């Protein structure tokens, strides 16, 4: 992630005029100091708008919904709002389109997390649900919980399946037992019997059933024939009688006409048929006379009509004779059928090995007239056959039922066995899922809690209240309880913590959470979060923030807390990591403005650089700077000073505390760029001549007994300028505007600033 270069804000909240904030290279921490109402929150809001599309400083202030209408500066419209953040390689802008925040480009949109003073306490005092929501993204394993629920369903279903199989098993045993009893309890072990029976082929009963079926059908077909035969014989007799009557009627009709009438009719009908095929003959087809050919057909018709009665009698005779013929043919057919059915019965009889008790007679003879006697003699047999058939059908049915029961019994047992294997495995799977989920979330929460505790301990060391715990409520989804151990008592923090401690804890929770979420890509914005921290803890809190901020992409701390400015002005804030920006008083016309944020040494240099230096101002500034420098030396080398509760020492006291040996040894190596610009060299500056000169001026004007802020009253103007210059030289030698004071003795041979730009010798006071 590239480092921030410039933030430009226009017409958002307090920025009535466009305001640009340039970020110093390689400094991840920017402290924006300003009195209340100077526009600090406007700059925080600018980041909030760009990263999160909102202006958090207006939320929860009872303004209701639609807050975007308040986002624009007085006299400006929302569409005029503009926030632009430039980095070494990107440029993102945020604007308002109606009430929507539009960030361009969307890709790589800065990730911003903002903590405001009014939200700090909420992190501690929030409901368990709200607290859970804050870190839900990191601990929410809803997908796993759903999978867990599905697994529980699978187990429940398998248990039901096993219960169901057990129930079926009981039913199947009962059914097998019933069938065994129905079969006459043939064996002591009914299950063994059932198994053996079930192995018998299902078709075992089929041949007997089929044979009995065929026997009954064949017999039934025989029973139908005698009646049909008798009827056919009657029809033959009736047809014969009819034919004889027709013969007599024909003969009577024939006697009424010429003896050859019948032949004549025959000839005439033949001629008529001829003439129908040859309608206009030139001559008679019989005599070949041409003269009578004319009207031959008409004359033929007239003659035939004369033979009508004879013709009708003739037709009836032919019909009757045909009927006799048909009746005889029918009788012949029945006789053939009778023979065939008798043979079929014979085949059925001989085609099967009939068991004992089933009597099957020889088939009847071909003489159908004898069949009634045969049928009468065998009429009781079909009843026995039907009984035998029903018995075998029942056996087949029972066998089929037995096979089904045995199959179901086997399947139920198999199902039960399979489930007996699968169920423990499903249960074990569930145990693992639950165990891993709990372990995962517990570990995550423990990590967060430990981190909160670690951060808290840095600010409140050894107070016995850094053991923080976060616990998910197993009974309530999305609920996160927080507890702390306060002198051995576990309780929610509000039970024992002061407001100051709660604020610190809130900040620690926020930082720990923020570190979960890609911190290297996150711009952290802390808006006025140090308000209520107790004085003894401020130093440590500031150190904590400076240190923790290095893990983020950038950190912006907005504060009106004076110690920040004092630290900056005394070069205590800077170790090469922090940029300090001071905002001026906000006015509607000028909006947010940046004022000089020079430290005291820089201010002294500015006063000395004036063409007409103001001696009084120089002296007033140089006094406190010298006091700070000498106190630093006194503390560093544990110099002897009279004990005073107010720690207010005179110039003479602090100067005299530096004895001759130490004064001679006091030397600072000041880092300077090497010639050619590659690397650095160290220029040695002895502090002895500067301290001697300061003492000389003080003695000359009898100001050694003066307090530092009273020096301006004691020194002449000419002395004051020299005094100021001398103090400035000591300060420049001893401190660095970027890295502050030489406070590290890690080298083992001198005191150094963190960036090694100053090396103060000696390490210890010479004896």
């Amino acid at each position, binding site marked *: 992630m590239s480092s921030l270069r410039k933030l430009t804000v226009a017409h958002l909240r307090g920025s009535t005029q466009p305001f640009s904030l340039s970020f110093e290279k390689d400094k991840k921490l920017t402290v924006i100091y300003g009195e209340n109402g100077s526009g600090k929150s406007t700059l925080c809001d600018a980041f909030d708008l760009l990263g999160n599309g909102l202006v958090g400083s207006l939320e929860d202030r009872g303004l209701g919904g639609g807050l975007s209408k308040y986002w624009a500066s007085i006299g400006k419209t929302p569409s005029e709002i503009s926030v632009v953040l430039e980095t070494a390689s990107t440029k993102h802008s945020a604007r308002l389109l109606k009430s929507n925040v539009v960030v361009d480009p969307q890709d790589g949109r800065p990730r911003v997390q903002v903590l405001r003073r009014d939200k700090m306490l909420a992190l501690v005092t929030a409901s368990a649900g709200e607290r859970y929501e804050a870190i839900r993204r990191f601990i929410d394993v809803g997908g796993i919980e759903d999978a867990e629920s599905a697994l529980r369903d699978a187990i429940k279903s398998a248990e039901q399946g096993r219960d169901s199989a057990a129930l079926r098993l009981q039913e199947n045993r009962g059914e097998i037992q019933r069938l065994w009893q129905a079969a006459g309890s043939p064996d002591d072990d009914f299950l063994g019997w059932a198994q053996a029976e079930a192995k018998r082929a299902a078709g075992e009963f089929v041949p007997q059933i089929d044979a009995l079926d065929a026997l009954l059908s064949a017999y039934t077909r025989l029973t139908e024939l005698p009646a049909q035969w008798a009827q056919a014989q009657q029809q033959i007799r009736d047809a014969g009688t009819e034919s004889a009557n027709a013969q007599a009627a024909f003969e009577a009709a024939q006697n009424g006409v010429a003896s050859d009438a019948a032949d004549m009719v025959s000839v005439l009908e033949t001629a008529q048929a001829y003439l129908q095929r040859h309608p206009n003959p030139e001559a008679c087809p019989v005599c070949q006379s041409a003269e009578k050919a004319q009207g031959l057909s008409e004359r033929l018709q007239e003659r035939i009509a004369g033979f009508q009665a004879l013709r009708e009698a003739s037709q009836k005779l032919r019909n009757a004779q045909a009927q006799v013929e048909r009746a005889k043919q029918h009788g012949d057919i029945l006789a053939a059928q009778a023979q065939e059915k008798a043979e079929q019965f014979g085949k059925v009889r001989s085609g099967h090995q009939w068991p004992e008790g089933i009597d099957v007679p020889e088939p009847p003879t071909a003489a159908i007239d004898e069949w009634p006697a045969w049928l009468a003699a065998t009429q009781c047999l079909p009843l026995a056959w039907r009984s035998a058939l029903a018995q075998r059908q029942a056996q087949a049915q029972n066998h089929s039922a037995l096979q089904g029961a045995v199959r179901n019994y086997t399947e139920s047992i198999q199902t039960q066995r399979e489930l007996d294997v699968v169920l423990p495995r499903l249960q074990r799977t569930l145990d693992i*899922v639950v165990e891993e989920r709990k372990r995962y979330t517990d570990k995550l929460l423990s990590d967060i809690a430990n981190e909160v505790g670690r951060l808290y301990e840095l600010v409140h060391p050894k107070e016995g209240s850094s053991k923080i715990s976060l616990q998910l409520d197993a009974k309530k989804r999305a609920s996160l309880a927080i507890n702390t151990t306060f002198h051995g008592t576990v309780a929610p923090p509000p039970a024992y913590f002061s407001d100051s401690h709660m604020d610190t804890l809130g900040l620690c929770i926020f930082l720990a959470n923020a570190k979960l979420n890609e911190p290297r890509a996150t711009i952290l914005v802390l808006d006025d979060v140090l308000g209520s921290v107790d004085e003894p803890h401020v130093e440590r809190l500031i150190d904590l923030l400076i240190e923790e901020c290095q893990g983020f992409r950038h950190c912006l701390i907005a504060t009106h807390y004076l110690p920040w400015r004092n630290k900056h002005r005394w070069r205590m804030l800077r170790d090469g990591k922090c940029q300090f920006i001071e905002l001026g008083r906000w006015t509607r016309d000028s909006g947010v403005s940046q004022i000089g944020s020079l430290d005291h040494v820089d201010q002294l240099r500015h006063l000395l650089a004036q063409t007409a230096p103001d001696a009084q101002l120089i002296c007033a500034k140089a006094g406190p700077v010298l006091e700070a420098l000498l106190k630093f030396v006194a503390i560093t080398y544990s110099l002897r000073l009279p004990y005073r509760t107010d720690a207010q020492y005179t110039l003479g006291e602090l100067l005299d505390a530096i004895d001759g040996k130490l004064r001679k040894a006091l030397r600072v190596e000041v880092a300077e760029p090497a010639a050619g610009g590659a690397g650095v060299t160290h220029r040695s500056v002895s502090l002895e001549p500067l301290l001697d000169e300061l003492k000389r001026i003080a003695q000359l004007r009898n100001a050694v007994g003066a307090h530092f802020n009273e020096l301006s009253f004691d020194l002449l103007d000419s002395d004051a300028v020299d005094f100021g210059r001398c103090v400035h030289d000591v300060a420049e030698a001893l401190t660095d505007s970027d890295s502050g004071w030489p406070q590290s003795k890690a080298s083992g041979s001198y005191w150094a600033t963190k960036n090694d730009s100053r090396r103060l010798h000696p390490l210890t006071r010479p004896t």
Partner: protein
Amino acid sequence: MTEPTIRASEQLAGKIIQRLIDEKLLSANDGKKLVPKMATGKVRAEDWRLAVEKSVPEVSSDEFPS
């Protein structure tokens, strides 16, 4: 403290499935298929049943139960 770079459910699903595979409660192949479904909560009861059943070693038994 570790930084979660992937969603918690995905990370946890991977851990759980690996353990189930190690304990031979799932085959590696079925486990691999279950990870994304588990992370998104789309595993159904029958998916679990089938996957666990498939991991059971084959035992042939023709013996008639009594």
